[in-house]
């Protein structure tokens, strides 16, 4: 799968060979996918994610929204192919994500986790170059092209000046940007983020989501973000998948999903929803009487 002559850009691949069938506009297609966690088949399941479907196009940002234990992370694992759906399928450009070979998967799907644990310290540029692993053999040394792509990736997230810093000596927001740069260096079609704003200041949260929006538009990534931040999801996503206790309650634009009684019931908190001039919903939490 190694393609050393690829132009060193971060734009997602749009080869027509990746598209065996289906609507060429749809990149990610979750079709009636479900999952069950059970200690063993004879016992009652610990958690069930009921069958759900949605589709996403290139350049689109999808937010998977819900309170804790609603099945957000499970859904993300089904999309990433880390778990095989019990029923239904998840397709990326017509290929089931679960059955992709590890290298192929890494060239198409990049995952940004809550935090990346480091056993031994490494520099930011070494970390970003890890994103190029899937483009080489077992022992290959990074090429000029890899270095250019890694530099571009750092530049795209505004972290060029961090390149030579140690990963354990930078702030949480800076670290999150470097982790995002590593994902961009994978040149993915699909960018998955698991609670990326969890440990960030509000300023860093907005920075991160602003760059995500911009990158999705520029590089035609399909972005899927797991979050429980109502306002960030409402402000930055094109589509919201609302989950509660393993059930998908609603899929649609933020404006159509954000209804006061629905959100109050899902998040168990009194709140109000108003529309801003840009057509985005804004949620205000109220104190419980």
């Amino acid at each position, binding site marked *: 799968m190694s393609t050393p002559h690829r132009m060193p850009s971060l734009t997602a691949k749009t080869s027509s060979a990746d598209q065996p069938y289906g609507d060429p506009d749809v990149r990610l297609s979750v079709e009636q996918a479900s999952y069950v966690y059970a200690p063993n088949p004879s016992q009652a399941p610990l958690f069930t994610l009921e069958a759900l479907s949605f589709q996403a196009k290139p350049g689109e940002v999808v937010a998977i929204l819900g309170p804790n234990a609603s099945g957000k992370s499970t859904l993300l694992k089904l999309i990433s192919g880390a778990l095989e759906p019990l029923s239904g399928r998840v397709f990326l450009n017509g290929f089931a994500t679960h059955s992709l070979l*590890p290298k192929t*998967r890494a060239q198409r799907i990049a995952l940004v986790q809550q935090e990346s644990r480091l*056993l031994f310290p490494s520099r930011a540029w070494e970390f970003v170059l*890890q994103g190029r*692993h899937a483009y080489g053999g*077992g*022992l290959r*040394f990074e090429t000029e092209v890899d270095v250019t792509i*890694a530099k571009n990736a750092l530049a795209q997230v505004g972290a060029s000046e961090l390149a030579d810093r140690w990963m354990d000596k930078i702030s949480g927001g800076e670290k999150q940007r470097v982790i995002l740069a590593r994902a961009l260096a994978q040149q993915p079609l699909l960018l998955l983020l698991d609670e990326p704003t969890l440990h960030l200041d509000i300023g860093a949260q907005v920075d991160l989501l602003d760059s995500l929006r911009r990158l999705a538009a520029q590089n035609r990534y399909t972005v899927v973000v797991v979050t429980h931040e109502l306002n960030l999801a409402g402000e930055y996503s094109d589509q919201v998948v609302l989950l509660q206790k393993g059930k998908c309650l609603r899929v649609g634009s933020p404006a159509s999903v954000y209804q006061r009684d629905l959100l109050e019931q899902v998040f168990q908190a009194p709140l109000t929803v108003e529309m801003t001039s840009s057509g985005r919903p804004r949620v205000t939490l109220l104190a419980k009487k």
Partner: protein
Amino acid sequence: MRPLTLGRLLLRCGILAVILFVVVVIALKLGAVQVSLYGLGRDVIRVLLGQSSAISSDYGMIVVDIRMPRILLAIVVGASLSVAGASFQALLRNPLADPYVLGVSSGASVGSILGLMLVNQLALSPAFAGLITPLGAFLGAALTILVVYFLGRRSGQIDSTTLLLGGIITASFLSAIITFLMSTLAGSNLKGASFWMMGSLSTPPPHSLLYLLIFGFLFGAGVIYTTASDLNLLLAGEIEAMHLGVDVPRVRLVVYLAASFLTGLAVSVSGSIGYIGLLVPHAMRLIFGSDHRMLLPASALGGAIALVIADTIARTVVAPSELSVGAVTALVGAPFFIYLLRRRLA
């Protein structure tokens, strides 16, 4: 941004190889019989070039037949243990992992002893012992690391402290078994319990077996080296590694088998020499960074250097008597282990 290149890798390994050569020459010189440094350097090069016959016979016997095999053994054992240590550290994502601390060496010792007993029982020719003991040691090592791995798991996750405790307890249990086997079933060619528990390089195997060992080491270390850049990513965690394109189950299996093999290889000829697999990879990481493409060959060469030095100390400081080489490595290694442990807890 300066990624590792093949040229830089070879240069650094070349420097380490030169250091190893100098250490070997000094180790050859030190001992009860004095020989000149210049003559030694010349003769080591002659041996390397396959011209051993040109060496004068008076000290040729001491250098080539007595000190050289022992030093060669130290090189292979040191390299094997260090590469195994670096691999276990990556595999278990635990910087304190080491074949000795985890009890893997003890498991290999038990396997070796059982292998030797089998050879005695079946009255096989002694040549078989050279093959059966490494095999037994490999099986013992592989089984032990599996047990320790499952002891170290808590609700599906490897817990670093539990893993170490599990390893230490397993080692102590296996030592008891070694003592038991030694006292009840000691046969003619079973080495003493202290050999298996502390390690010794004082009885190098015959030349033919030494070559087999070198070949075995190159094979095992070569197999691990094919996964070097996968190991870099595995350090970050299995899910992350998978999403960066690592075939995690395959890499885990390959490294697990090959590292057990290297441990078994070393233990079957030298007993359990401790802490080399802990000290050396850490020292190399400090110097060269934690990229396994650099770390693994550097650990192999560094392990060889460290064990040749340790063994030279072991056989010279209390001459004409001899220390156990495991005692020398433990004197340095155990405090270092404590230091790493404290730093982790801090």
